[in-house]
């Protein structure tokens, strides 16, 4: 029922005069806080602790933008959205951006009226099963019942994969991630499917993580990144360059710890990144030290990755394709100049 009300609320918001389409930056500045749409709780990506502070790779995107605008990473209001409600909430202006392990697809980019920022996590869909089922590959799941979350690319990939391999299966679909995991845990389903990162994260939350395993098959490409509404190029630029600044900082070795030193650096690339040279921030409606602010409060991409999902976290996910392009990965930023 809550979902319906939200959808209705969104519909009403569409009726409301002039939704916040252009001028998002001004709206955010006037409001004094950034409304950031995140998931309902996925460890490592965006999850609230006991004090209600959100943490994670996706939460850091919101914090970095807030740092760039307000020089204060705490000026973010996190709005927890289920997969089903997220786009409506963004379209209706309830949130300024969506940083919610959302897959960039053509139809979302076009007919949903969204723009996707740079990919901050390259992922793919996988399956988790109980070890005692003795299944070694997703292709052995013929006749299995699979739990998944509603309104995701996962739901569609699942159907595609089984159709392509001509395997019969039975989907059970839930509105939120928690309900899906709970149904898997109670034995309603043989397998649980979502992005591989999500599987590693959810496995740790199960009562006996060792009874479960993630199958090696990755059945899709899931480029995850922040999304904004169509029609506000300035805001879209800010979201894009937030990620690029964090990547560039990692590339140039600028970290939270050595920022003070780096501010005095004579390297022109670092000077442009931190705003000690040029007026790149002002061009976007921000201050010129916007890059320095992000590094000061959030750190570079590598730091954020290690702290939230990498070796410094419980998830222990290897950088893999998410390493810098110079280290064999896919993370690459256009030059700041």
């Amino acid at each position, binding site marked *: 029922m809550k979902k319906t009300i939200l959808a209705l609320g969104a*519909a009403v918001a569409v009726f409301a005069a002039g939704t916040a389409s252009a001028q998002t930056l001004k709206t955010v500045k006037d409001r004094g806080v950034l409304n950031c749409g995140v998931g309902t709780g996925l460890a490592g990506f965006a999850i609230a602790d006991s004090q209600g502070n959100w943490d994670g790779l996706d939460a850091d995107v919101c914090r970095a933008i807030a740092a760039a605008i307000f020089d204060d990473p705490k000026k973010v209001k996190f709005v927890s959205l289920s997969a089903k409600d997220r786009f409506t909430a963004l379209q209706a202006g309830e949130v300024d951006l969506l940083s919610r392990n959302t897959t960039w697809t053509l139809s979302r980019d076009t007919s949903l009226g969204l723009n996707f920022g740079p990919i901050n996590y390259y992922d793919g869909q996988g399956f988790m099963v109980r070890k005692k089922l003795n299944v070694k590959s997703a292709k052995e799941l013929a006749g299995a019942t699979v739990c998944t979350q509603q309104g995701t690319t996962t739901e569609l990939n699942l159907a595609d994969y089984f159709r392509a391999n001509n395997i019969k299966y039975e989907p059970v*679909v839930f509105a939120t991630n928690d309900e899906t995991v709970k149904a898997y845990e109670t034995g309603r389903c043989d397998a649980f499917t979502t992005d591989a990162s999500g599987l590693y994260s959810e496995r740790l939350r199960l009562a006996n993580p060792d009874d479960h395993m993630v199958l090696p098959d990755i059945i899709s490409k899931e480029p995850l990144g922040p999304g904004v509404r*169509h029609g506000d190029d300035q805001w879209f630029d800010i979201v894009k360059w937030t990620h690029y600044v964090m990547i560039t900082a990692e590339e140039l070795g600028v970290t939270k710890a050595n920022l003070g030193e780096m501010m005095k650096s004579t390297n022109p690339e670092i000077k442009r990144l931190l705003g000690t040279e040029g007026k790149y921030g002002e061009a976007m409606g921000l201050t010129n030290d916007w890059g320095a602010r992000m590094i000061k409060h959030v750190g570079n991409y590598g730091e954020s990755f290690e702290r939230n999902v990498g070796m410094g976290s419980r998830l222990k996910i290897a950088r893999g394709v998410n390493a810098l392009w110079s280290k064999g990965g896919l993370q690459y930023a256009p030059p700041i100049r």
Partner: protein
Amino acid sequence: MSSVDARTSGAQGVGVEKPRVAFWNDPEKRGYIFQAVLFAAVIYFFWAAFDNARDNLVKQKIASGFGFWNNTAGFDIGQRLIPYETTSTYGQAFWVGLTNTLLVAVVGIVLATFLGFIIGVARLSKNWLVQKLATIYVEAIRNTPLLLQLLFWYNAVLKALPEVKESVAIPGGSFLNTRGLFVPEPVFAANFSWVLYTLLAGLVGYVSYGRWARLKQEKTGEQSPVLKVGFGLVILFPLAVYFLAGQPLSFNYPDLGRFNIRGGVQVYPEFVALVVGLTIYTAAFIAEAVRAGIQAVSKGQTEAAYALGLRPGPTLDLVVIPQAMRVIIPPLTSNYLNLTKNSSLAVAIGYPDLVQVFTGTVLNQTGQAVEVVVITMAVYLTISLTTSMFMNWYNARKALIER
């Protein structure tokens, strides 16, 4: 003061010429003006809302219109009453959701009516224990939120059931496990239609005989063995044909496969939880309506029936219930409507009803919130109005006709 005088004199004096007043002081004309203004305001409100929404959608380049209806859906639905595949369209997904909603509504309404009547009568029982139990049931169920009850039933139903490997085998070839209840699927041979035809003929015969017997009783007071004749026509006769046709009915028994049970008919736990939850919840309200209806029939009616020599059974049947029905039917109607609308809480437990499939997945995949929500609201409105119309017709038939 003059206008008040004009009005009173206008109202009193039939045939007397109306005094001339300014048109804004003429109550009749003023009434028309106010109505016209209100009407225009309402029309403007809806037009503005519609126009604004369309404008905003275009501005944000969000797709609009109903073109998505024929696009490929690309997702699967677990429980479906009509054929549906991944390659089907959003429109077909809509029908799958709608039929699932109707299934829950119809099954729920039938079960809730039975349970509600039993509990309602039990609340008036002279047996202390039965009456208290019924009261506790009504008060406990009526005063807790339905969503919590559904979650309770779903988790209780799921958690209590064994896993597939340890399925409970029910005598008669059925299995019960976390995936639901698996019952043998009837397979009809071609000859089976003969059995159906005889059954139909038997029913028609039974109804006509019953009518004939009632007319005869009204005329002569003589009673006929309606039940015995009915038993012969509806049960013995088709049974005889069934054996003569060579038992044209077999069963496809469910069988334990690698992950799941193969064959048979699967009753999903989501469906069971939703039907049980809705039935138990709505039955509590129906029970109250039934109790109120029965208590609304004055005690004098029962006493008069006893004085005429009627036994308690026929008294209830012929005197109390027909009068109570007049009071029961209107609240019964709104309970039926509530049950249908409450079935949309299915989203919480993963049952693929209209709201889950259509305003859930389809809305999300297409992003067309306005169209999808409008269609869904129109569907619920249609279902509710149809139910109301039927119940109003039934109410009119049952209303007391004074002779």
